C-alpha cells in the first residue's frame, strides 16, 4: 500500500432502504491521454447501459483523489439537506433543485426515477464534507477527472452486491494498465453498517475443472486435451492438462464474470476452434411428426374458405378498448378482456376478444377496392379464464365479413352452411348437428341476428351489422358477418 494508509469508505445504515451496497478501489499514478480518458468515460457509460441495467443495479463514480481527503462516508439524506455543485455546473444546488433541472436533460432524465420519490437520497462525502457524488444521478464538480488526473478513486454503489463487485473488477482490470506500476490496483476498505469491513476489489480468480472429452462431445470435434488447453488459453482462459491427462484445469479471471458454467468454457473452445471449421452432422434422432390438431384443422378450413371466394386477412391481436367494446355497443367490463398495463398508445390497451374489429378495419383501409369485399380470418382471440395457470386462454375463432351495396345475409348464412358441410356437421337439432336460432346483440341490426348452436353448444353468431357499428368503423356500406369458435370441432 504505497503513500500511506488505505482509503476507507464507511457505509451508514440509512443507505439500506435506498441503495445498500458500495465498493471502492484506487488507481494510483495513472497516466491519461485524451484517448485513454475518452475510453475511461465510455467504459463507464457502456457498463451503465448493460450490466448495471441503466444504473438501477449499479452506478459508477470516478473521482480525482488528489482533490479529496478520506475517509469517505456513503450515507442517505433528505433531498433538501443535500447541496453541492454538480458536474459541469457553476453554482451549488440542492438535490430537489437538481431533480427538476435534470428533468429536461436528455441523458440524465432516464435515471431520475431510480431515487426520485424516495424520502432519502444516496450521497457520498469526504472528511471535509465535499460531495463526491449523488448516485446514481451525478458526480460533484469538485472531483472532476481530467486528462491530468493522477490518482483515481472509484466507487460503485447499487442494489446488487454481486454486480457492484463485478463492475469494479472490470474497471480496475481494464485501466490498471495505465498506472505507473502497471497492472496494480490499490485496495480500498469498505466498512459496513454492522461494523464489519472488507477490502475491494475482490479480483477473485476461479479454477474450474472440465473433462476434455466433454468439450469434444459438446462441440463435435476430436481434439487432444493439450490442443483444447491451447485453444482455451488463446481465449484468455489460462488452461493446462492435469491429472490422468483427460482433465483440464482452467483459470477464470475476474474479467470473465460471464463464465459461470462449463458450457461457457465449451463455447470459448468452439470459438477458438472456429465455428466454420466444425464438421456438420445430422442427428440420428428418429421421430414421427405430429401436427397440433387445432392448427391442422385451421389449415384445412383456410383453403376451403378461399375456395368459397373469401380473402384471408391477418390482423393485430392487440387493439383499443373501443374496438372490442364501445364500437360494438358493449361495455368493456362485459368483454372479459385481458388488459395491458401502461400501453404506449391506445392501440395496445387490450388483447382482442373478437376478430370482427380487425376485419372491419381492413375494409376501412381498403375502401377503394371493388365491391363486394369478402374477408375472413381464422386466428386466436384471448379471454380471461381463471381455470388456466396464467389466468387467461386463447380461443381459435373463424370470422367472415361480407361488405357490399346489400348486406348479403344469405351469403354469410350460405358460408356457414358450407363450413358445417366441410366439418361434417349435419343440419338439425340432433346431437352432432347444427342449427341457428333468432337472437339479438348490440352489434347487430334488430331482427337480423342469429345464434349458431352446434354439437350441443353455442359457438357464435351471424347477422347483419348494426349501422352504428358500421359508421363507428368508418364504413358506409351494409355488412353482414359470421364469427364462430372452431374448437368444438376438434
Amino acid at each position: 500500500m504505497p503513500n500511506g494508509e488505505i482509503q476507507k469508505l464507511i457505509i451508514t445504515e440509512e443507505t439500506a432502504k435506498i441503495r445498500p451496497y458500495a465498493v471502492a478501489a484506487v488507481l494510483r499514478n495513472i497516466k491519461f491521454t485524451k484517448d485513454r480518458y475518452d475510453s475511461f468515460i465510455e467504459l463507464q457509460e457502456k457498463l451503465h447501459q448493460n450490466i448495471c441495467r441503466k444504473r438501477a443495479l449499479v452506478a459508477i463514480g470516478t473521482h480525482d483523489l488528489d482533490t479529496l481527503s478520506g475517509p469517505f462516508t456513503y450515507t442517505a439524506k433528505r433531498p433538501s439537506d443535500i447541496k453541492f455543485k454538480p458536474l459541469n455546473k457553476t453554482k451549488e444546488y440542492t438535490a430537489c433543485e437538481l431533480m427538476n433541472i435534470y428533468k429536461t436533460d436528455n441523458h440524465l432524465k432516464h435515471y431520475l426515477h431510480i431515487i426520485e420519490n424516495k424520502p432519502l437520497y444516496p450521497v457520498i462525502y469526504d472528511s471535509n464534507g465535499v460531495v463526491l457524488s449523488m448516485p446514481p444521478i451525478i458526480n460533484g464538480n469538485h472531483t472532476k477527472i481530467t486528462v491530468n488526473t493522477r490518482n483515481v478513486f472509484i466507487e460503485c454503489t447499487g442494489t446488487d452486491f454481486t454486480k457492484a463487485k463485478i463492475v469494479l473488477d472490470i474497471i480496475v482490470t481494464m485501466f490498471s494498465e495505465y498506472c505507473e506500476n502497471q497492472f496494480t490496483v490499490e485496495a480500498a476498505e469498505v466498512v459496513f453498517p454492522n461494523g464489519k469491513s472488507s477490502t475491494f476489489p475482490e479480483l477473485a480468480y476461479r479454477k474450474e475443472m472440465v473433462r476434455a472429452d466433454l468439450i469434444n462431445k459438446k462441440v463435435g470435434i476430436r481434439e487432444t486435451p493439450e490442443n483444447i488447453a491451447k485453444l482455451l488459453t488463446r481465449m484468455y482462459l489460462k488452461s493446462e492438462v492435469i491429472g490422468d491427462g483427460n482433465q483440464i484445469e482452467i483459470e477464470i479471471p475476474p474479467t470473465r464474470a460471464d463464465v459461470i458454467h462449463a458450457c461457457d468454457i465449451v463455447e470459448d473452445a468452439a470459438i477458438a476452434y472456429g465455428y466454420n471449421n466444425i464438421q456438420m452432422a445430422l442427428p440420428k434422432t428418429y421421430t414421427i411428426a405430429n401436427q397440433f390438431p387445432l392448427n391442422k384443422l385451421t389449415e384445412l378450413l383456410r383453403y376451403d374458405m378461399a375456395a368459397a371466394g373469401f380473402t384471408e386477412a391477418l390482423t393485430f391481436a392487440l387493439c383499443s378498448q373501443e374496438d372490442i367494446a364501445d364500437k360494438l355497443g358493449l361495455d368493456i367490463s362485459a368483454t372479459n378482456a385481458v388488459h395491458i398495463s401502461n400501453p404506449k398508445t391506445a392501440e395496445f390497451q387490450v388483447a382482442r376478444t373478437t376478430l370482427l374489429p380487425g376485419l372491419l378495419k381492413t375494409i376501412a383501409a381498403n375502401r377503394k377496392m371493388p365491391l363486394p369485399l369478402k374477408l375472413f380470418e381464422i386466428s386466436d382471440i384471448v379471454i380471461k379464464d381463471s381455470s388456466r395457470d396464467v389466468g387467461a386462454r386463447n380461443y381459435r375463432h373463424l370470422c367472415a365479413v361480407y361488405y357490399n351495396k346489400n348486406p348479403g345475409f344469405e351469403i354469410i348464412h350460405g358460408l356457414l352452411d358450407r363450413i358445417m358441410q366441410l366439418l361434417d356437421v349435419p343440419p338439425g337439432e340432433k346431437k352432432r348437428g347444427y342449427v341457428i336460432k333468432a337472437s339479438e346483440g348490440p352489434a347487430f341490426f334488430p331482427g337480423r341476428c342469429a345464434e349458431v348452436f352446434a354439437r350441443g353448444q353455442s359457438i357464435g353468431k351471424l347477422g347483419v351489422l348494426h349501422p352504428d357499428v358500421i359508421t363507428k368503423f368508418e364504413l358506409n356500406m351494409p355488412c353482414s358477418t359470421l364469427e364462430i369458435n372452431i374448437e368444438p370441432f376438434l
Partner: protein
Amino acid sequence: MSPVWPGVGEGKGELFWTHWTEVLTLKTYWVSKGSAFSTSISKQEAELSPEMISSGSWRDRPFKSYNFSAHGILPDSGHLHPLLKVRTQFRQIFLEMGFTEMPTDNFIESSFWNFDALFQPQQHPARDQHDTFFLKDPAEALQLPTDYVHRVKRVHSHGGYGSQGYKYNWKLDEARKNLLRTHTTAASARALYRLAQKKPFTPAKYFSIDRVFRNETLDATHLAEFHQIEGVVADHGLTLGHLMGVLREFFTKLGITQLRFKPAYNPYTEPSMEVFSYHQGLKKWVEVGNSGLFRPEMLLPMGLPENVSVIAWGLSLERPTMIKYNINNIRELVGHKVNLQMVYDSPLCRLDAEQGSPQTQETT
C-alpha cells in the same frame, strides 16, 4: 385589295376572305368487290352458341378474330394471405423433417415460463417495461409448478447443476408477473418440461410458428406483433456440429445452400450462433437466424438427464416473406393496413424456387 391567285401550298384562306372564290372539295373513291362480297346482309359473329351447334349454322357464319393480347377475366376466387402462405410452407418443411408441432395457443404467459425457466435473470433489461408488454389484468399467474419453481429459484440465486448461478435475490412475485409472450421459446420450455416428466427419456423434435409481442420502437420493418419460427431437437450427445447439420438441411429446403456461422449471445443458449446466408441480389451475407444449445441451468432443473443436449434455432416469419414478396413496409403485409390488391395478386409460395424479385434479376 388585289386578288391573288393561289399557288401550290399558298394559304387559301386569303381567297376566302375576299369572298371572290370558294373552294370546293371533290372526293373520288375506287370501289371493288372484296372476298366477303355478298348481296345479303349478315353480322360478324362473336361467339359460338348452342343454337349454332345444333343447327350447324356456325359453318356459314364469319367470326370476329380474337385479340390475344388482351387480358382474360380473372376467376372470382378467394385468396390466402401471403404471410400465411409462407407459414404453410415452413410447417411443411418441419413436418417433412419429422418435427412435431408444439401447442402455442396461449398469447398470455407468466414471467416464469417466459424468462425464469429459461435462466434469464430477473434484472435482465429485456424484462423492462420498455421491451415487454406486462398485464394489468390478469396481472399475476395463478399457478406455477411448485417443486420446479424451487429448483429454478435455487439455480438463479445460488447456482448448482455445475453453475455459479447469478447470485442475486430471486423473487417469486417477479416470476408471477403475467405478460404477452416475447418469444415462443416459452412454449418450448413448457414442452421440454413435459418431456422431462416422462421417464424413461425419449428423444424429441419439436417446432412452432406463432405470434409473439415486443414493446419496442416501431418502424418500417418492426411491429409490436410478429411471428416467430422455432425448431428444437432433444437427444443424447447432440453437438454444435449436429445443430449446423440440421440447419443446413432446414435452409436447403428454403433454397439456401451457402451458410456461415458466427458466435453470438443469448441468455439461455451457450454456445450460441448467428446463421448467415449469402444473398445473391444484395451481394452480401445476411443474417437468416439465431441458434444455440440450451444452457444446462435451464434443462437440468426441468429434470432432463445430464447427457441430453437440446439444440434450438429460430427466425422470424415476416422477414423471409418480405424478401420473397418484395415488400418494404411491414404494415403493407401484416395488420389491417394491408394492401388487399397485393393479397389478391400474390403468387404461390415456393420457397425453394428461384428468387423472382426484380432486385436479383437486375444484378445477376
